[in-house]
């Protein structure tokens, strides 16, 4: 039981640190670099201590950090799906035309702009003379998700 409390404390502390950095300093520490750093520190601790209980806790904490990394962009950025659900909850039953009007009025203009900005800032897309190109990182991401789409036969509405 003691170890579970420790793990909960680590996870909660990580969440609080992220929240503090984001709200007070405007810095998003949710980066691949942080995940790798935590993994390296955890590996070092598990090798040094060689305790089974600590290893279990460190694996759990590392996976929590990865899940947090996946979850946070959905909270910081406004996705169209969540906006549609929000509008439907507020309006209960709604005609498609009305919903489309409300959607366009609410967020439509900023959605694509924001996503493009994020893609450029994270070096997934490069901008040369007003034209957009995929970087190597972007090509790997596309290849990875296209492979998942093919393997699991997913419909992507293209």
């Amino acid at each position, binding site marked *: *039981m003691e170890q579970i409390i420790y*793990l909960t404390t680590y996870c909660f502390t990580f969440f609080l640190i992220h*929240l503090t950095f*984001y*709200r007070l300093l405007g810095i998003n520490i949710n980066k691949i670099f942080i995940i790798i750093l935590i993994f390296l520190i955890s590996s070092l601790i598990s090798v040094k201590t060689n305790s089974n209980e600590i*290893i*279990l806790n460190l*694996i759990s904490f590392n*996976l929590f950090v*990865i*899940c947090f990394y*996946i979850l946070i962009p*959905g*909270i*910081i950025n*406004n*996705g*169209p*799906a*969540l*906006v*549609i*659900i929000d509008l*439907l*909850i507020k309006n*209960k*039953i709604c*005609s*498609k*035309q009305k*919903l*489309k009007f409300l959607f*366009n009025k609410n967020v*439509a*203009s900023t*959605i*694509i702009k924001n*996503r*493009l900005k994020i*893609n450029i800032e994270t070096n*997934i*897309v490069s901008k040369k003379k*007003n*034209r*957009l*190109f*995929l970087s190597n990182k*972007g*090509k790997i*991401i*596309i290849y990875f*998700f296209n492979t*998942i789409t093919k393997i*699991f*036969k*997913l*419909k*992507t*509405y*293209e």
Partner: protein
Amino acid sequence: MNKLNFLIIISPFLFTLFYVLIFFVAQQLSNKKYLTKLIYFFIFVLLLVIFSIVKFYIFLNTQQIFYILFIFTCNSFIFINFIQIPISSLQVKLLRIISKNSGPSEKKINSKYTPSNIFEERIKTFINNGTIKKEKTMLKLRREKILAFYMFFKYLKTLYNVRF
């Protein structure tokens, strides 16, 4: 580390692998309603995990039980997101557009992928996965369970001071 401890460490990963495999087989048989499959197979494997824990209860302590459940849930969350991202992520969609058209301008992207397209796509996805019900021209939320996710996101957005 003895054999039992090693088995405990890898067991949630094996359960996740089983989850991935049954989803893969189900998708090969029919690729409709992927979200329903993702959710129901998760519940099915989770029940299997709980059954295994009950079966081997005498060999496990509280931390190990918690570990197995926690790691399986985290792994499943990651897998569900990997399936969801190529379908609904706007960032990935924009990358696809850039990859298909060699060096498009921002203006061209905006004209190709308009807010109206985004709206139609999302509504189509929602109707296909059963989140929204279409009655003639009216749209209605079908699953009350979606409210739990909505409240969770709304609460976190408030904490992070992000407005809709």
